[in-house]
């Protein structure tokens, strides 16, 4: 048979080659430090691209004017396919940019891949650097080294419909328990509406519940992570969140599959009394049909008057380790992340600044950002900063736990225990 003979040939060829290991690349830090030439920059493309481009172009114009023989070449890359882009850049340093914008949850895996340069000293010597919000700056640090400058932060707060709450006869919730009762009252009054639109896949809405109850995703002991989802406090937080996805508030049939965006979409479509949404959702909500009938407050904690710790999302600007223009790169990062540029970005895009003083001035002039700034001021929290978190995230372990509880496939203790075990296995595999 021809096929078997061909297989034999292929096997022989394979045997001859088995001594070869799969290919690896070399991301050693470059010793070269050119002061002229083209600086390659990757930024994320936006749905509403023009305002972002305008701010970036203005910064570049100024930068090129003060740096002789330097040209900045910006490429806007789509957020959805960033993983492939960044991995390709790590695998082939010659196609990598010098400076890049990246999501702060991706940081640890990029550092582990050896792609990002340690820029701690450059932040320290930067005159504006000392005003950076320390909680936010901490999200760029791994083992005490900073691998990026926070460009903007994103936090979530509680959006509610003033008219719907009033009709249902409930006050704006002041505790997490009140969110549940208010949501139930809304749905009882309007059976076609979700009391609060939350989702089984909306992990950043679930995290404040976990943290407000004193729970944690994982504990870090000298760089070794262990999951803490099965502690009584964490389980209380998981239960409080999943209790919202009941038939009398946000039925699992509808809400189990929602991610953060989908749940906010329901609110924008006027199909929900409340939702947990980000500052980045504000413009879309303010453009909806009920634009003068909604309000925003920080997500309340367990006790009245407290604020639940929010997830500090946001994007950083970092320098690639393989860059041959490290000084220039750092200067450009500081130009783009400067107070001036961040203010311009806030005006253009509504991105929340990362400097404490800029946050304050912005909140004073724009009352609508106050709930978000208050949330940041009350203290934020973050996902475990370890490269293994991206594996946990890719496998959807954290959201699977919520979905299992919501769909009744497992109760809270079982789901929490199983997820803790699965997560620990990944943490240990490092």
């Amino acid at each position, binding site marked *: 048979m021809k096929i078997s003979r*061909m297989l034999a*040939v*292929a096997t022989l*060829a*394979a045997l001859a*080659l*088995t001594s*070869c*290991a*799969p*290919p*690896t*690349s*070399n*991301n*050693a830090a470059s010793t070269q430090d050119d002061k002229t030439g083209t600086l390659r920059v990757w930024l994320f493309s936006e749905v509403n691209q023009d305002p972002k481009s305008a701010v970036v172009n203005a910064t570049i114009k100024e930068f090129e004017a003060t740096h002789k023989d330097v040209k900045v070449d910006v490429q806007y890359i789509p957020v959805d396919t960033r*993983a*492939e882009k960044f*991995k390709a850049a*790590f*695998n082939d340093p010659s196609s990598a940019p010098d400076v890049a914008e990246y999501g702060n949850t991706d940081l640890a*895996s990029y550092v*582990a*891949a*050896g*792609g990002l340069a340690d820029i701690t000293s450059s932040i320290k010597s930067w005159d504006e650097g000392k005003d950076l919000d320390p909680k936010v700056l901490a999200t760029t640090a791994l083992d005490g080294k900073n691998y990026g400058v926070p460009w903007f932060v994103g936090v979530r707060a509680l959006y509610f419909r003033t008219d719907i709450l009033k009709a249902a006869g409930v006050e704006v919730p002041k505790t997490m328990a009140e969110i549940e009762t208010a949501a139930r009252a809304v749905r009882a009054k309007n059976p076609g509406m979700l009391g609060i639109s939350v989702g*089984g*896949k909306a992990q950043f809405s679930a995290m404040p519940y976990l943290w407000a109850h004193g729970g944690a995703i994982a504990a870090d002991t000298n760089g070794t992570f262990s999951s803490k989802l099965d502690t009584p406090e964490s389980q209380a937080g998981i239960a409080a969140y999943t209790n919202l996805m009941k038939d009398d508030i946000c*039925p*699992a*049939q*509808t809400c*189990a*599959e929602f991610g953060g965006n989908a749940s906010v979409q329901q609110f924008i479509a006027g*199909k929900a009394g409340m939702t947990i949404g980000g500052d980045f959702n504000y413009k879309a909500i303010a453009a909806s049909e009920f634009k003068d009938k909604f309000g925003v407050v920080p997500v309340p904690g367990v006790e009245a008057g407290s604020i639940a710790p929010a997830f500090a999302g946001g994007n950083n600007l970092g320098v690639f380790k393989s860059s041959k223009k490290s000084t220039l790169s750092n200067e450009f990062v500081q130009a783009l992340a400067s107070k001036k540029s961040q203010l311009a970005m806030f005006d253009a895009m509504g991105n929340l600044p990362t400097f404490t003083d800029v946050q304050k001035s912005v909140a004073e002039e724009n009352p609508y950002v106050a709930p978000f700034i208050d949330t940041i001021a009350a203290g934020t929290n973050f996902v475990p900063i370890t*490269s293994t978190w*991206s*594996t946990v995230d*890719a*496998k*959807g372990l954290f959201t*699977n736990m919520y*979905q*299992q509880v919501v*769909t009744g*496939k497992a109760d809270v203790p079982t789901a929490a225990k199983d997820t803790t075990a699965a997560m620990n296995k990944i943490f240990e595999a490092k």
Partner: protein
Amino acid sequence: MTLQLPAKPSLQEPKPATPSPRRTKRRGGVSRFEHWLYLAPALIVLIALMGYPLFQLVNVSLYDYRQDQVSGNAPLDFIGLENYRTLMADPEFWQVLANTVIFASACVILTLVTGSALAVLATRLRPWVRNTLFAVSLGAWATPAVTGSAVWLFLFDPTQGLINKMLAGIGLSQFVDHSWTYEKWSAFGLVASEVVWCSFPFVMVTVYAGIQAIPTEVIEAARLDGASMPRIFSNIMLPMLRPIVIIVTIQSIIWNFKIFSQIYIMTSGGGIAGQNMVLNVYGYQQAFAASLYGLGSALGVIMTVLLLVITLVYLRLLKRSGEVL
């Protein structure tokens, strides 16, 4: 139409009783290698395009090969069969494998049954009806998997979908806001319908072409003897269509075991809490999303071996039943 068929292709290749005199004359020392010379272009292309990637797939599956290793930030360790052992010990893998086998088998059977039934029906239709049927189903076949999945998802959307609105419209109130992807098997059923929808046309057109190639006298003779249509199909057409049915079955098996886009899009990456995960999506999740290239490659190898085994067993069974291959 893209399919061009000779007027009356004979399905069974007539076997030469004796080797032709020219060939015997040519059997000399040099010409023993002559067939390799003719094969060389195809072999070179095959080895370059299939052999090498396959070799690298097996090779990578034997290493602890993650993003850190690829970008040279961690040492590369040869771990032998450790990746395979990890998979074998993982109950999730077995669950995914079971899902894949059940889902793919259902898709194969439904595709073949639908395609063959419509092919037989097509022979009985007026030309313009038949051409309309073909044109419409070729449209489904030509639709890219991603587009098809998205459109189906639109149609079956819980709140805005046409299907739910229609069902609710005829008084079935339980379908108001009904989520088709909430239950595991309901979600698999929905995806399977989409898969059958976009793959039955291939079976239909191929089988129809096969039926057209059957000499009309044979069928006429059977009809004169009083055979019914189902009888004609099972006792006359099917045996004569064997070679074609074998091809479309193997194609369907391979195609349906490798389903990726439909599951990935319609169940948003594997369903609620991963209930609709199939091997290929699982492999993608491990290899690319989680950057566990070694583990993902091991999954790829298992997939390849599985498909080879299924195909070989299928061919073997046919051979035993006396079919000339």
